[in-house]
């Protein structure tokens, strides 16, 4: 070990200029240190530091160690001897260079010899455990999906865009786990018995209390002459031959699977797995965001040090690309300038006259009314489109042309996409007149866009639900739902979600290929002024995140009605990752308005959480309040899906039953979802 020592060891200990800078003179810092310790924020830092492994006193050690690296070895020995904790702490956490650390370690090792056998053993155990942890961590990092892709993106475009891609990766993983859950607990048990491996019993419709017409369920389009294009339509819209596959709810008609002595209750498993995947998503997101929440709530919005954040933590050292660094320079400059500008504006605003104030408030009120009108316009047209397409799909699909049929199937998706495209354009135009501060402008526009995206899904589901339940009408009396239009309404909801997901994917793909790519070609090879002025497509993180959160919300809602939807979502996001990566690398330029990593992570997860809550509501309502189909699915014998739980409880011992009955009532189910927050 003595032979290959670096040249650093030749350096006179503690003599270099750097060290003095690095460990400012104790006399100099001490007054301010004591002063700082009075601050509440400093106290909280202390707390954080101690919780992070007792590192707080390390700093004091550093000051002590710094001056006498070798000359006062004895001091060091005493110092480490007193604090046995300091020995346990890893040496690498000292802010020293390697030769100094090496010396420090030698001292510590010499010190260890004076300890009792027990302590010695404890320390070696600690050390080897740490080493083991390091090695497993290193190994597991190889298993990370897209590790290199994400790092190269980070190097080229900075941490903000990288966080978008990590978010995408997280969703791929989440969907894959949900898929594994659904597949192993629902699809597999229902499929195996069909091959005669295990015994099973199908659901038998009990004749009493059910009108015969409720249980008629024929799939249109499977008989007679079948054109090729109907296959395509079926594939794209989940009808026909796809309707009775394991993709949709209607396929799962098995009641019990007998596995030697064990009875596997499929309806119960179906319901429980749904709860499991929802709560798993919830827990996972919350767990992921705990760190982000803490940072964002406690620190990010600290108005007293926004400039310090920008200056001291402004440069993204991960950037390795010259162009990216140019961009970062200009975005930082832009940010600083706007901040200073904003400050001046604020001062101006303070001396605004009453008249001006009144004018602005009136204008804002008017514009907000306009926004509301725009939104209700979107929602109404979506409602009409859904009703129209639902009515006509079931009527006479065989008579229609290929294009007409496809258009009809996808009408709601098209309207949603149009609304998602048009509304943000208006929002970003309107916001200029409202004279908010620049930071608030961005946030408000974003919140409006989130609202449009997610409310669109809500409106679609609402109109579908209206069609299914058709309150107070004759045709729903018999079964509790519109059995003529929807013999198996759960499958139909699943189909709608399936279509939305497919269409969303097609749009993402088409925009990349038919918009971004030609634009890139035009900008590169055409020197016509207006085209050059338009420039390349900007990669806007918020819009892109909204896009994938929208897809994820659809997936969460649809998984109950179409258990294999997560598999499609996994594949979809997997491909989307590459589409986005290629379009970012080759056809887009990053937006000048940079988005900071911390705030963006926070924003992603908040929007995702809103999406998840949105998924809870329709699922909870449909499970408890709408009668389950009598013609298909595992819940034929139950009034609603939720009824499977009380039914199971009836099989429990009476004492347990009484306790559970109170909890498992329908009145509890809906509030449960609310209270769980």
């Amino acid at each position: 070990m003595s032979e290959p020592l670096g040249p650093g060891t030749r350096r006179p200990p503690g003599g270099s200029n750097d060290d003095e800078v690095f460990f400012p003179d104790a006399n100099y810092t001490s007054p301010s240190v004591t002063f700082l310790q009075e601050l509440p924020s400093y106290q909280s830092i202390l707390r954080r530091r101690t919780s992070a492994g007792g590192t707080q006193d390390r700093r004091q050690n550093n000051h002590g160690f710094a001056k006498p690296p070798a000359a006062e070895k004895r001091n060091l020995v005493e110092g480490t001897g007193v604090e046995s904790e300091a020995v346990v702490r890893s040496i690498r956490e000292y802010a020293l260079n390697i030769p100094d650390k090496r010396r420090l370690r030698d001292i510590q090792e010499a010190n260890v010899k004076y300890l009792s056998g027990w302590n010695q053993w404890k320390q070696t155990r600690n050390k080897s455990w740490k080493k083991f942890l390091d090695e497993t961590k290193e190994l597991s990092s190889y298993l990370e999906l897209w590790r290199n892709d994400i790092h190269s993106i980070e190097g080229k475009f900075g941490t903000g865009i990288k966080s978008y891609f990590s978010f995408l990766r997280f969703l791929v993983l989440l969907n894959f786990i949900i898929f594994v859950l659904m597949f192993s607990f629902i699809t597999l048990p229902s499929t195996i018995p069909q091959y005669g491996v295990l015994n099973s019993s199908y659901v038998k419709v009990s004749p009493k209390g059910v009108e015969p017409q409720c249980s008629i369920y024929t799939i249109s389009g499977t008989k007679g002459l079948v054109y090729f294009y109907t296959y395509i339509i079926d594939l794209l819209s989940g009808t026909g031959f796809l309707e009775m596959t394991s993709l949709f709810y209607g396929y799962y008609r098995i009641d019990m699977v007998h596995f030697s002595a064990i009875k596997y209750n499929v309806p119960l498993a179906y319901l429980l797995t749904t709860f499991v995947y929802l709560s798993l998503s919830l827990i996972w997101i919350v767990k992921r965001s705990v760190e982000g929440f803490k940072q964002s709530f406690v620190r990010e919005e600290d108005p007293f040090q926004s400039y310090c954040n920008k200056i001291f933590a402004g440069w993204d050292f991960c950037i390795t690309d010259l162009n990216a660094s140019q961009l970062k320079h200009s975005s930082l400059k832009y940010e600083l300038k706007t901040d200073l500008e904003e400050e001046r504006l604020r001062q101006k605003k303070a001396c605004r006259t009453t008249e001006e104030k009144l004018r602005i408030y009136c204008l804002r009120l008017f514009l907000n009314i306009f926004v509301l009108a725009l939104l209700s316009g979107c929602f109404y047209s979506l409602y009409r489109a859904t009703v129209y397409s639902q009515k006509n799909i079931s009527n006479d699909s065989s008579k229609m042309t290929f294009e007409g049929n496809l258009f009809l199937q996808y009408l709601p998706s098209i309207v949603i996409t149009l609304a998602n495209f048009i509304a943000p354009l208006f929002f970003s135009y309107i916001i200029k007149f409202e004279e908010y501060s620049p930071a608030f402008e961005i946030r408000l526009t974003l919140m409006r866009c989130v609202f449009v995206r997610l409310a669109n899904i809500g409106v679609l589901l609402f109109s579908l639900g209206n069609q299914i339940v058709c309150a107070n009408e004759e045709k729903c009396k018999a079964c509790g739902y519109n059995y003529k239009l929807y013999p198996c309404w759960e499958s139909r909801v699943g189909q709608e979600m399936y279509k939305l997901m497919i269409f969303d994917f097609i749009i993402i793909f088409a925009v990349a290929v038919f918009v971004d790519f030609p634009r890139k070609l035009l900008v590169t090879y055409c020197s016509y002024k207006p085209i050059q002025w338009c420039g390349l497509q900007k990669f806007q993180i918020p819009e892109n995140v909204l896009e994938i959160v929208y897809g994820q919300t659809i997936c969460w809602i649809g998984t109950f009605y179409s258990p294999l939807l997560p598999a499609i979502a996994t594949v979809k996001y997997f491909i989307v990752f590459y589409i986005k990566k290629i379009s970012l690398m080759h056809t887009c330029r990053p937006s000048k308005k940079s988005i900071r990593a911390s705030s963006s992570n926070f924003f992603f997860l908040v929007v995702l959480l809103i999406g998840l809550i949105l998924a809870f509501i329709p699922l909870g309502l449909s499970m408890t309040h709408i009668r389950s189909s009598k013609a298909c699915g595992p819940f034929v014998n139950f009034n609603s899906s939720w009824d499977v739980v009380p039914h199971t409880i009836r099989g429990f011992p009476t004492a347990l039953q009484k306790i559970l009955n109170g909890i498992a009532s329908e009145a509890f189910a809906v509030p449960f979802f609310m209270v769980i927050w």
Partner: protein
Amino acid sequence: MGGSASQLPRDLLGEYQELTFLTKQEILLAHKRFSELLSKEERESILQKRVPKSKILSLPELRANPFQDRICRVFSTSEDGNGSMSFEDFLDMLSVFSDSATSEIKSHYAFRIFDFDDDGTLDKKDLEKLVNCLTGEGDETRLSESEMDQLIQNILEESDIDKDGTINLSEFQHVISRSPDFARYLCLHCLLRCLTGENPALARQGKLASG
């Protein structure tokens, strides 16, 4: 690099693992990268050699960094202050910039990097240089004088707690500890992960083409 590069002795590797935040793989990679900066003859005794600053700065990871000079100066243990680096200095630098380094360490070194005149405090001149580094060195990219004054005034108002007109280490760490982005930004892990080939630009292009 074939067999021409001398291998890192096992016990030394273990020692570096203990003393830095780097993993075994990363240390080996760093060794390889460092030996690429040396000429063929020098590679025989890699641990005794120093690489001049100009070569360190030619690394693509530092090329785009406005603080490249400061980084070299801070991590160099060279006696004559020319910023040349030994292998252990190089490892030190990578360790501080690695993902697993504590933000405590990172803020320590960030302070030294930002302290342009090496006097132990960040004064107005240091801050001005820092801001210029951030916005770009060119004349047209700089902030105007009044903007700069306003900005530095704001920074000092936010962070100079004892009101002596400069920011010292403890004030700096106090401010930094409340900045959510800091630890995330102060990393250079691409140095160790993305690029492994001798010509990084080629390696990247190759990866793109295949990806």
